[in-house]
């Protein structure tokens, strides 16, 4: 029995900025937002002026000002890469309550190009810069910094508890790369049989349909032989750092029926948190996705067995493997086997991360928007590129998808159950 808010609103369009990945010419994070917003409004036929709720990871007031909008609902939830799944949850509630009609969820982040402009992408407020912040005070002495330095502790604990191996997690990177070889928009896309591409200078980007010099298929050995970052995490267990802009529009059934693009219904939504600083993570083999997924499935009146595809935040191979378990798609300790046994692969029974994932498609720092765009593209049939099935753009014929974002250091989660007509 679905909950009252189930399908009270739909994602009616999803679009990206004009240049994503490693663009030849950097654009600001704000420009990446605006391009995506303009694209999604053109795609749906809903004018920018109709937007009356703005949801973003910290950018909402600036977006409203830049666009000359005066929204009735302003949400700046910024709790890591899952923020965008939470924004969809919040937008569903606001539309269901009759507060707004058209919600914009927007993302722009020059995660790659910031290294050339001296700027910052969006940044994350870990510890907030307050030296008295307890998380900062009791962890800063030990030097942990970039995300891999924390996630590796979870991967080691998973291996200890369940007997999983580095090779098991490497399978996730291998299959995810395989999806990227089918997606010309993916940073790690590369056409089969193209041979070695000439090496690029730092910052240079082959661009377009040519693919990346490092792209193309990989094997478990490639992953195992990539350099150690934070043992047991190696370079190819780690997501990309790219530029991305993305935007989705959310509206109730009446407005959805006027959109030029089909609705993908928000059948279920949930969110949760287990900790903010990893120091407070109770069980290093579990995330709050267990709770957020339970809420989303309950609202949808559906379960993991009803899901025909999944979009799972893969900041690291361990993130995807663990989260698959939390979403009920695999038994505890058996997450990586979904990839190893090729259920998650092209042609498998449960396609996962059909865009090539944060590992091989695009990851700008916060990846939750990329999950939403790909889930919409697959379920709505609006994908435009050549794909595995031979249909233009379509990697699957799935009509249901569980989407899970993870933020912080395995800290926060937002889960959505999306369905198409």
């Amino acid at each position: 029995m679905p909950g009252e808010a189930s399908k009270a609103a739909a994602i009616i369009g999803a679009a990206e900025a004009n240049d994503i990945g490693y663009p030849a010419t950097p654009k600001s994070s704000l420009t990446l937002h605006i391009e995506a917003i303009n694209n999604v409004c053109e795609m749906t036929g809903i004018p920018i002026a109709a937007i009356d709720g703005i949801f973003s990871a910290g950018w909402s007031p600036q977006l409203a000002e830049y666009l000359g909008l005066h929204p009735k609902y302003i949400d700046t939830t910024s709790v890591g890469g899952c923020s965008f799944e939470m924004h969809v949850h919040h937008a569903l509630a606001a539309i269901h309550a009759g507060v707004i009609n058209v919600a914009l969820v927007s993302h722009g982040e020059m995660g790659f190009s910031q290294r050339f402009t001296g700027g910052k992408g969006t940044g994350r407020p870990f510890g907030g810069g307050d030296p008295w912040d307890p998380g900062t005070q009791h962890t800063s002495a030990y030097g942990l910094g970039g995300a891999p330095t924390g996630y590796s502790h979870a991967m080691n604990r998973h291996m200890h508890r369940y007997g999983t191996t580095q090779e098991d997690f490497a399978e996730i990177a291998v299959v995810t790369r395989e999806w990227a070889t089918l997606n010309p928009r993916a940073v790690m896309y590369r056409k089969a049989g193209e041979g070695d591409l000439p090496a690029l200078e730092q910052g240079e980007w082959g661009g377009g349909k040519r693919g990346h010099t490092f792209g193309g298929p990989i094997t478990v050995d490639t992953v195992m032989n990539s350099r150690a970052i934070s043992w047991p995490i190696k370079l190819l267990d780690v997501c990309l750092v790219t530029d991305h802009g993305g935007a989705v529009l959310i509206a109730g059934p009446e407005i959805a029926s006027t959109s030029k693009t089909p609705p993908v219904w928000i059948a279920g939504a949930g969110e949760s948190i287990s900790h903010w600083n990893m120091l407070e993570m109770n069980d290093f083999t579990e995330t709050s996705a267990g709770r957020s997924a339970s809420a989303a499935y309950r609202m949808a009146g559906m379960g993991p067995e009803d899901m025909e595809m999944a979009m799972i935040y893969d900041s690291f191979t361990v993130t995807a493997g663990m989260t698959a378990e939390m979403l009920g798609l695999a038994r505890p300790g058996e997450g990586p086997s979904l990839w190893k046994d090729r259920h998650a692969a092209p042609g498998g029974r449960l396609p996962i991360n059909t865009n090539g994932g944060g590992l091989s498609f695009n990851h700008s720092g916060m990846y939750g928007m990329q999950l939403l765009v790909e889930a919409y593209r697959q379920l709505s049939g609006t994908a435009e590129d050549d794909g595995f099935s031979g249909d233009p753009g379509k990697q699957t014929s799935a009509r249901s998808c569980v989407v899970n974002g993870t933020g912080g250091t395995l800290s926060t989660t937002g889960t959505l159950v999306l369905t198409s007509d």
Partner: protein
Amino acid sequence: MAEYTKPIPSPDPVSQPFWDGAKEGKLMLPRCSDCNRVHWYPRVICPFCHSMNIDWIEATGRGTIHTFAVQHNRGLVARGWGDEVPYVTAYIDLAEGDRMLTVLKGVDPNDPESIKIGGAVEIEFEEASEDVHIPFWRPV
């Protein structure tokens, strides 16, 4: 004393008893007077029962390794630590309850298989400044 080049924490009034103990080589932990559970990091309220009656106890300084990782990438770690890669970070289950982050001393970062999750460790303190002595742990 050689200059300490790595980050030095800033004690605050809530955590001061811990840092006072550290200067004397003692591990002081906050414990709730109502539910008797130890928590870490220090708080003004018990995270288990929400009592505000918090006392401090001197702990044994013993624990076990909950999980660990080997930091290899100098660009991902804080100033000062980059010169020490590879080094081993670990979460320690305290004998009295709850968990601390640390850097493990006396282990071989190039042989992670030799470091045992569940293995017994004990605390030691390094003088980073006159006021701040930082806890580290090493296998017993």
